[in-house]
């Protein structure tokens, strides 16, 4: 059952990723990317990393993709956009990155075939599920967790200050 699920999810992820790259309409591309992210989240669940899956969905599929859509719609990019004209340097770098990634993948496969490294799913309650992450956040990482709230507050306050329309304060009462 698990294996069937894995293959279905993996196939959907790869196919929608390809579709994202090959589609000319940027809005479709974003929607296909969301499908990819959903199926990857499914893979995380299979690995017992339900927390990562949830965060993945909320942050990437939820927040960041909505931003992407916003930008695309605000910029009003039409579907018949010409192919992006990559400079030669970018092409070379892109090829290089692809080969590095392919090499890493083959290295991992080769090592696991030789038995030097093994794929281990995260067992029940080891790391990735919500209770264990929650427990860590409220014991060992309680202080960093609370600091993060102050950090976010500063970021929000700062964004509002920089975006405020009114530049000068009210004149002080006489």
């Amino acid at each position, binding site marked *: 059952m698990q294996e069937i699920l894995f293959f279905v999810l993996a196939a959907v992820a790869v196919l929608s990723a390809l579709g994202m790259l090959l589609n000319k309409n940027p809005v479709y591309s974003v929607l296909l990317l969301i499908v990819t992210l959903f199926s990857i989240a499914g893979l995380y669940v299979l690995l017992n990393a339900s927390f990562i899956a949830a965060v993945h969905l909320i942050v990437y599929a939820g927040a960041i993709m909505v931003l992407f859509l916003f930008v695309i719609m605000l910029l009003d990019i039409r579907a018949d956009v010409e192919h992006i004209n990559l400079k030669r340097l970018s092409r070379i770098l892109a090829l290089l990155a692809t080969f590095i990634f392919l090499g890493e993948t083959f290295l991992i496969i080769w090592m696991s075939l030789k038995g030097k490294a093994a794929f281990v799913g995260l067992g029940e309650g080891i790391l990735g599920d919500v209770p264990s992450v929650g427990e860590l956040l409220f*014991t060992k990482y309680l202080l960093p967790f609370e600091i993060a709230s102050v950090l976010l507050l*500063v970021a929000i*306050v*700062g964004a509002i*200050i920089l975006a405020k329309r009114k530049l*000068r304060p009210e*004149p002080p009462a006489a």
Partner: protein
Amino acid sequence: MNTAIGTIDWIPVAPFIALSVLGFLIMIIGLFFPRIYRETLGTITLVGLAVTFFLILQNWGEPRYAFANTIVGDKFSTVFNGLFVVGAALTILLSLNSQENRYLLYADYFTVIVFATAGMVLMSAGTHLLTIFLGLETLSIALYVLAGFRRENAFSLESAFKYFLLGAFASGFLLYGIALIYGATGSADIQEVTRWIQQNSLTGSLMLPIGFLLLFVGLGFKLAIFPFHMWAPDVYQGAPTPISAFMATGSKAAAFAALLRVALSTQSYTAIAWEQVLWVIAVATMTIGNIIALRQDNIKRMLAYSSIAHAGYILIGFIANNELGHSGMLFYLLSYTFMNIGAFGVISYLSTAEHEFVTLGDVRGLAYRRPFAAIAMAVFMFSLAGIPPTAGFISKFYIFSAAVKAGYVWLVILGVINSMISLYYYLGVVVQMFMSAVEEKAPATATQQPAVALALVVSMFAVLGLGIFPSRWLAVFMEMARSFI
């Protein structure tokens, strides 16, 4: 799943909590009383900082770990946190210029300064790399906002944007470094990392040295040392003057605090061939800062390059890596806080909304127009140049003698040559002030600035006091440095 949380030692986190509460308080006061006088707000902030300072002093003593070893209250954090709070208080005094900063929204401004200080406090007290990182981020985000606070000024916006882009990049390096250290040792707790290094070795895993290198890069950006110094002049020039002072002193000291804690606990920056690298970085930082400062006409830009050079001097103490070196760094940072805030403070003291007093032409003949400002500026310039009997001289003396003790004679010779180069541009300001006639069409200076004047007087007393009676403070810092061994 049964986890005992146990009793919590609140003292180590008390400074952070106090600063956070103070930040909230000012924000809420600004919300409900938008017409409050800025002097009132400033006083409330200063009282809050005084309370924080008292809480910080409670941490002096044996290390007290809290919250699962993520934060500590020890002599090291006490000294650094005291420094940050004093710097923040002086910055707030400088900001109370009644004529220049007319367009600032004071409640927001003070709130962000206080939160920035909270971030610094975490950087010196954090014993977990995660705490240090979050502290750095809190500090950085607050500083991006502060740099862009003069929104009607294009330079200020440029400054904020530049700082933001480069700062975000540097944070990435820092986080990558932390991730690699965690990957190699299985923990980001500095004590655990130290234990791992003692049991294994620093070079046992390739990930670990690279992690420490990236950590250094991330902090080096905040320190504005070569080759991560390019942002400093533009950012300091564009930011509001008190904020330039705050960035040059507080955030630099905070980055040194984090670096020093990691280095002293793990001994990671001395074990391998780091010394040579640091040696080159220190010399390059000093030389580049001083040489470019020679040609600056804008005093804020000049002070920015000089702050790069000073980071280089402080690094010498780091390289010397002995007790005198570490306590010398502390002494240097303390003196530097006063003299640099003082120098920026004089600019703030004279500037009006129409005219910022920043060029050498502006200060021409200042001694005849505003003798107090000129004398204050002269004291700070002498101190920055390292002329006795000021604090600047004594701090350089401690740092250089620590390096000689550790055998880095050439480093010291280069440092001394650099100090001599720096004399030229520091004294250039003094010469302009005292030995040229006032220009006829000189713009009007600001008057009636009791808050800024108070900051200048305090800084002057501190610069001279530290210069004439240094031994007591050095003893305190020595005790701190010893507490690590």
